[in-house]
């Protein structure tokens, strides 16, 4: 009997014109953590979906624990001992955490779901693996990080022996990542085999024992983690060296483009944001750090106007927009890259062109703002504009008609970024702008954000990545429990200090505290 938990041999899959997987071999040794890396669209998710029975390969063999398998659905894969945490959430928003976790494998009593047992099971798992969660909370109310924990609990609940994690850390904060990796290590020690898809090299170096790198649907490198370097991995992924974009430092500051004054947001009587004040000026990137669910997203929603404030005022470029509708705020000079790409930032059934056009569809070259053609769109103009953006943002696609939902995760993110940056609004709010994008693209996006600032516009950057905040922001505010608990300027900011403040240690950051 071999020690391989899973062996994939010669897996190929083509979607119309795109060869997503081209003869991939992958061997996962039992009880190890195996990282899979590669650029956006390299074929990682496709390969994982094939292993999990979601996608049928055109050719190739899947051997699980010594037995050749052909999964016709994820149910077969689950029965064979596999579990998968998907790149995007597959949860029922209207159900509770406990219901979601046990869904499909419910503890029953007298033929009915035993809610108490389900809740107990969730608490037990959560405690054992150190995943903080409330079994009774409605999933729709949870932050991205909390949802991610629910997904992981779901796989753990079914006692998966082979756990596939497709970019589990894209929306997690550093402390959440640390606790996730504690879970992963514990699971591996207990004999579980883990496949980890990620773009973050540090994570790979920290937690995996082997690495397979994909490029354009093929294996471009196999490494033993202990014997490799991050430069070597980057070269295998991109075929080149990636230059780290240097932040040229603060330029000259201009007028204030955003002023938030004593804003509170309450939802169902719970105060999500309490008395927050901040401002962003032209030529400035203001960062907001915080563990997800501490009010950052509610603050963004309040500025955009999709959530009402319960107190305070919001001014965009001098106009008071506190009670104004979203359209008026966008017209006053606001663009937003939202955290929830699928739920809020795109229409997955619509084409790349249509997704890129929304909001630009009444302006040239798509719309005709006045005169005879007013209210009509030029489809040719929209297409031309889309193909320009596809090449300038390096969106890997079979064409501008491809629905956004069938793009790879990182490429879908680039669509959202391209659309919002091209508004050239005086204020850009960027929430997790680089979630799910590969190393090369992160640098490209960081470069664009710095150019955006250099062109005399302001950015409010909400990120879980402390490294991203340190690389880009001129000032970093830390949110905890709905309040801004600390502020650091560029020279004072460090990963340790921000991290401590994010964990709620406002007192420890006392010297930097500014109201």
């Amino acid at each position, binding site marked *: 009997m071999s020690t391989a938990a899973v062996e994939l041999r010669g897996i190929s899959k083509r979607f119309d014109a795109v060869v997503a997987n081209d003869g991939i071999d992958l061997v996962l040794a039992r009880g190890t953590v195996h990282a899979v890396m590669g650029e956006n669209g390299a074929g990682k*998710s*496709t390969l*994982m*979906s094939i292993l999990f029975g979601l996608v*049928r390969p055109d050719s190739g063999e899947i051997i699980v624990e010594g037995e050749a398998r052909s999964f016709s659905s994820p149910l077969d894969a689950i029965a064979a001992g596999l579990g998968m945490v*998907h*790149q*995007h*959430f*597959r*949860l*029922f*928003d209207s159900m509770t955490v406990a219901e979601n976790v046990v869904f499909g494998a419910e503890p029953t009593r007298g033929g009915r779901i035993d809610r108490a047992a389900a809740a107990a099971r969730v608490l037990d798992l959560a405690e054992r693996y150190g995943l903080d969660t409330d079994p009774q909370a409605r999933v729709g109310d949870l932050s991205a990080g909390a949802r991610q924990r629910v997904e992981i609990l779901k796989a753990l609940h079914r006692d998966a022996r082979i756990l596939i994690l*497709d970019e589990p850390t894209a929306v997690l904060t550093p402390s959440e990542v640390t606790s996730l990796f504690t879970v992963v290590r514990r699971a591996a020690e207990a004999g579980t085999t883990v496949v980890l898809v990620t773009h973050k090299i540090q994570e790979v170096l920290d937690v995996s024992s082997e690495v397979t790198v994909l490029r354009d649907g093929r294996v471009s490198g196999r490494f033993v983690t202990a014997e490799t370097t991050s430069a070597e991995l980057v070269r295998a992924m991109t075929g080149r060296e990636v230059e780290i974009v240097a932040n040229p430092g603060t330029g000259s500051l201009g007028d204030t483009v955003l002023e938030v004054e004593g804003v509170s947001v309450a939802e169902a009587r719970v105060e999500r944001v309490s008395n927050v004040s901040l401002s962003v000026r032209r030529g400035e990137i203001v960062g907001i750090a915080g563990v997800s669910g501490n009010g950052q997203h509610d603050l963004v929603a309040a500025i*955009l106007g*999709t959530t009402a404030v319960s107190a305070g005022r919001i001014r965009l470029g001098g106009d008071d927009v506190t009670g104004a*509708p*979203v*359209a008026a*705020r*966008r*017209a006053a000079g606001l663009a*937003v890259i*939202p955290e929830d*790409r*699928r*739920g*809020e*930032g*795109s*229409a*997955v*059934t*619509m084409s790349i062109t*249509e997704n890129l*056009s*929304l*909001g630009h*569809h*009444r302006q040239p070259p798509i*719309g005709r703002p006045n005169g005879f053609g007013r*209210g*009509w*769109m030029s*489809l040719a103009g929209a297409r031309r504009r889309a193909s320009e953006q596809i090449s300038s943002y390096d969106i890997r696609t079979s064409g501008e008609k491809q629905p956004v*939902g*069938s*793009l*790879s*995760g990182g490429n*879908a993110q680039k669509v959202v970024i391209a659309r919002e940056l091209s508004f050239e609004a005086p204020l850009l709010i960027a929430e997790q702008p680089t979630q799910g994008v590969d190393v090369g693209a992160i640098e490209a996006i960081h470069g664009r954000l710095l150019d955006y600032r250099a062109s005399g516009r302001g950015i409010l950057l909400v990120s879980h990545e402390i490294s991203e905040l340190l690389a880009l922001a001129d000032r970093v505010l830390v949110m905890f429990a709905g309040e801004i608990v600390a502020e650091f300027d560029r020279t004072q900011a460090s990963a340790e200090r921000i991290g401590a403040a994010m964990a709620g240690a406002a007192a420890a950051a006392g010297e930097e505290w500014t109201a």
Partner: protein
Amino acid sequence: MIARLTRHPAVVPIGAVVLAILIGAVIILLAGLNPIDAYAAVLQGSLDPRNLDYTFAVWGFICGMGLVAAIPLRMGEFNLGGNGQLVLGGITAYVVASQLGLPGIVAVPLALIAAMIVSGGFAAVSAPLATRFGIPIIISTLLLSPVAVAVASYLVRFPLAEKGSGNAQTPVLPEDAHIWSLGDLRYTSVGLLLIIAVMVIFYVVDSRSAVGFELRVTGANRRFGEYAGLKPGRLALGAMGSAGAVAGLVGAIIVLSSPYRFIDGALISPGYTFAGLAAALLAGGRPALVPVTAILFTILQVGGASMERTAEVPRQLSDVLQGVVIVILALRVVLDARRAGAGKDS
């Protein structure tokens, strides 16, 4: 390959039709009759050259009522109030054409326009009900429809009733106020051309205009639309207003056509609303497909009568088949919503 084929968007609609036809066959068999004869009679009855005039007229009405459902469906809303909107248009057209004593060249267009305005306004009420009071459009249209039907019924029984007739109907319209006919065709009139024109307009607006784009975005992902600054309330007002206007137009055309009067129940009983809804659902609201799917329901509708005559299968079977198609398509909507969390991204 097979997996790819089964995921093609046309599979469910076509499957629904095939399944409905099979279920119909089983019902006919259970009744001890011959399904092949019955279906042959349906096709013969509807496609018989001598009947084509009538078939075309019915196709036009089903297309019209298809738009009544399809326009709001574009933004994900269900308009179940087609009957009320249709009847209100019919009675308005009758009043304008008969009571104002205008010459035909003015009376006919005026009657059509008035019907569109009244029905459009009536349907548009559902939009503020949804935005201001949170009553879903699917509910308010369903509840308001019988009110309009009852008002029309009252009018035709009392103030507008034909004296000395036992039937609940108005007197015949003056010759001058009949809708213009096409040559010597009896059923198909200029009205059909108007409905075709409206379909073309819907197609062009849907695919080329900013508003059409905004409707489709809202239908695909409402939160995405709101985030981008679209106003679902205003879009709903426009969509419901136009849907109601089309229903009013259809009602007016029916009343201004033979037998040139408003007969209580005559606009509703042929089931154009239901057939149009089924056609719209089958087409997934897509403007270019509505006239195609409407053909199917036209054949069922028109052929149903001859099926009853020659194969002795009650024409209600047509309604059953339509119902089956709607249930299957509705099931798909529900299942899709359930699976919404499980789409592909990655």
